[in-house]
């Protein structure tokens, strides 16, 4: 049950999502209408903190608590980043949620979002089924 520590990190993360109102459809609307700095501030700060952390970890050649050397594989360019990225962006504007907030919305009492999550799973499944026919 060593995976339970990731549930704890997830709990911490879910609380932040709700308390900073990142899971709010309204906050996403503000972002895409350029009416508020809130979401840009959240994502921008997160990237700066994440980048400093990754830089430190790489510099110190750190290992994880399980003794594994921490490695971050490079991503490759694919057309999916463009087509899939655009499609996800459209869906993000409609649902007001990326995958993380979907889980937090369900937890915070919006039971109907289970339907959105089921359709997100169906979307992922359909991608898997059509993968060979799509530009990579």
């Amino acid at each position, binding site marked *: 049950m060593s995976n339970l520590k990731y549930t704890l990190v997830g709990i911490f993360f879910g609380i932040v999502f709700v308390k900073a109102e990142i899971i709010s459809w309204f906050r996403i609307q503000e972002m895409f209408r350029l009416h508020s700095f809130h979401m840009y501030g959240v994502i921008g*700060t997160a990237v700066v903190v*994440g980048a400093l952390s990754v830089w430190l970890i790489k510099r110190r050649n750190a290992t994880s608590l399980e003794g594994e050397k921490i490695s971050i594989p490079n991503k490759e360019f694919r057309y999916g980043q463009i087509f899939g990225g655009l499609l996800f*962006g459209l869906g993000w*504007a409609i649902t007001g949620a990326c995958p*993380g907030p979907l889980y937090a919305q369900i937890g915070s009492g919006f039971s109907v979002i289970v339907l959105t999550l089921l359709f997100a799973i169906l979307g992922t499944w359909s991608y898997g089924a059509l993968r060979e026919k799509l530009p990579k």
Partner: protein
Amino acid sequence: MENIIELIKQPWHWSIAGILIGLTVPILLILGNKKFGISSSLRHICAAAIPANIPFFQYDWKKQSWNLFFVVGVLLGGWIAVTFLQNPNEIIIAEKTKQALEAYGITDFSRLLPSEIFSWQSLTSLRGWIFMALGGFMVGFGTRWAGGCTSGHAIMGLSSLQIPSLLATICFMIGGFLGTHLLLPLFL
């Protein structure tokens, strides 16, 4: 102590949220060399529940089950936040956004999501199905095609200076702007 709880109940400033979310990147790396990413959980659910002989879902998802433990936590965190740390006041939304949405008949700003769209009742209308079902489908299809979502590309990818993730993030944003300004007026 009560003062601290009262303070936590207020909506958190973006800088606090940004720092805490950013810290998730090193926490996961240090705990177990795990790369922050949430949309992968959707793929693992497919692989575990409905693989249907699709090659994309033929892998040992159990090896990456930490991701599923993580998203269960996110769900529980959402519950804890509204149960114990609920902000007693209405969410404060930019006046311009409020006006734009009111023009479409969205007037309930009392919760995190507008009840006119996101409720079981609204499933009696096509609009409800577009926002919840079609929207969810696009999120699930798009993130997997892109190889990640806001967490995997925009936060983890940009934090590790990956140019493909920058491309993906730019496309997320373009899609979001198009969705808000072209699709929403059609659907609302």
